[in-house]
């Protein structure tokens, strides 16, 4: 009507347009804001509670050291988060990002608009992955900050009895939190598949958490050592090797390979289901 020519952006630009719209929708969601707030605040509350009651979470690796070195705090949180929190953070946004359009009945509109299916899929997947990474890194940095501010930057006893100087601890803590990103993204891919397929946010968010717990149980089966190496959930613990002397990095490499393979397969399956859905009839 304005006489201006409407130019259709290229595929990359199209994906980014979708991603920007998704991001705007997410930041308006109370659930997502709450998750980011919790990731930032809970580590501080945890350390404050520990300081007040002068207790230590003995059953977790580094738990004995939370009152002695601030670097133990992010490691205790990481060890604890591996059981179910990391799968939850990976699935929180991804499990809803497709299902939300079902809930709001938006698909007939979306699929007939100028953005292609590939652009829609990529844009949504990109935002889901970005949110997973952001949530995990926020929790990690907040735990590290809570430890350093409320306990201090004392040296930490490693997993071979060696005393690690503060600078080394800092590097290893950051590397450890980065090392859980590949398996977190595998759970994000699983949540995307469920979100596309089940069209329900409850399934998309809850099932990856349950799957994470089941994989942990499976890893406890006596004699299942070969199987355990092939589970994405095992990659949540691959950072242990960084704190040993001599360092061992085999599990890190294995974790990245397993997570990437499983993640690619799940993402591919999600795309196939999404590409073949028909909402116009």
């Amino acid at each position, binding site marked *: 009507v304005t006489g201006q020519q409407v130019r259709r952006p290229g595929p990359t630009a199209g994906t980014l347009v979708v991603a920007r719209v998704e991001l705007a929708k997410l930041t308006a969601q109370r659930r997502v804001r709450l998750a980011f707030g919790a990731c930032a605040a809970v580590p501080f509350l945890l350390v404050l509670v520990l300081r007040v009651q002068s207790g230590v979470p*003995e059953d977790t*690796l*580094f738990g*004995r*050291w939370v*009152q*002695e070195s601030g670097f133990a705090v992010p490691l205790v949180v990481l060890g604890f988060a591996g059981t179910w929190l990391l799968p939850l953070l990976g699935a929180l946004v991804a499990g809803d990002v497709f299902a939300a359009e079902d809930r709001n009945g938006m698909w007939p509109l979306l699929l007939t608009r100028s953005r292609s299916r590939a652009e829609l899929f990529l844009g949504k997947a990109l935002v889901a992955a970005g949110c997973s990474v952001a949530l995990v890194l926020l929790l990690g940095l907040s735990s590290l900050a809570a430890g350093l501010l409320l306990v201090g930057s004392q040296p930490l*006893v490693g*997993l*071979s*009895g*060696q*005393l690690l100087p503060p600078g080394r601890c800092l590097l290893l803590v950051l590397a450890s939190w980065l090392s859980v990103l590949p398996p977190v993204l595998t759970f994000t891919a699983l949540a995307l598949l469920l979100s596309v*397929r089940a069209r329900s946010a409850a399934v998309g968010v809850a099932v990856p958490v349950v799957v994470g717990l089941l994989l942990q149980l499976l*890893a*406890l*089966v*006596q*004699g*299942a*050592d*070969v*199987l*355990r*190496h*092939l589970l994405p959930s*095992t990659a949540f*613990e691959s950072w*242990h*090797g960084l*704190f*040993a*002397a001599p360092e*061992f990095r*085999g*599990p890190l490499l*294995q974790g990245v390979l397993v997570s990437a393979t499983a993640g690619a397969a799940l993402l591919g*399956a999600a795309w*196939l*289901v999404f590409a*073949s*859905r*028909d909402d116009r009839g």
Partner: protein
Amino acid sequence: VGEVRTAARLPGLVLAVGGLLASTGCGPVDVTAPRLEAAVGPAFARLYVLQTALRGRPGLTTAWVDPAATCSRRESAGATSGAGDWTCTVVFRTSDGVGATAVYEVTARPGGCYTADGPASVVGPRTLPTPDGDVVNPLLRFDGCFGTT
């Protein structure tokens, strides 16, 4: 169409999980006596050096402590490896140059991490008094991990 695809993937998934489960019970075991001994011995020595320093006598070396750990499964019908309850006996040299033995009850978890509980009579109580206040006795109970790949 989506349902057909999902249904087509199901047998493959079942086969894969079945195959993986069938592979359990054979293949390499992660927790073995040599691995545990190679982890517990040096960790004990380093922590003994640390403890001696906390008690006001720095300068001890792990070579001086010269640890040797022997580990075996506890209360497990015939099992010689695998996660569970172990006993590790560490023979070492004290800071006074006397030979000593510390028997640790070790809980080894699948994946290669362990918790070792020591005898307070040999390694001291839960906390140690230092000029800066009480600190955790690093030797009474310690955690460690070893490589399994």
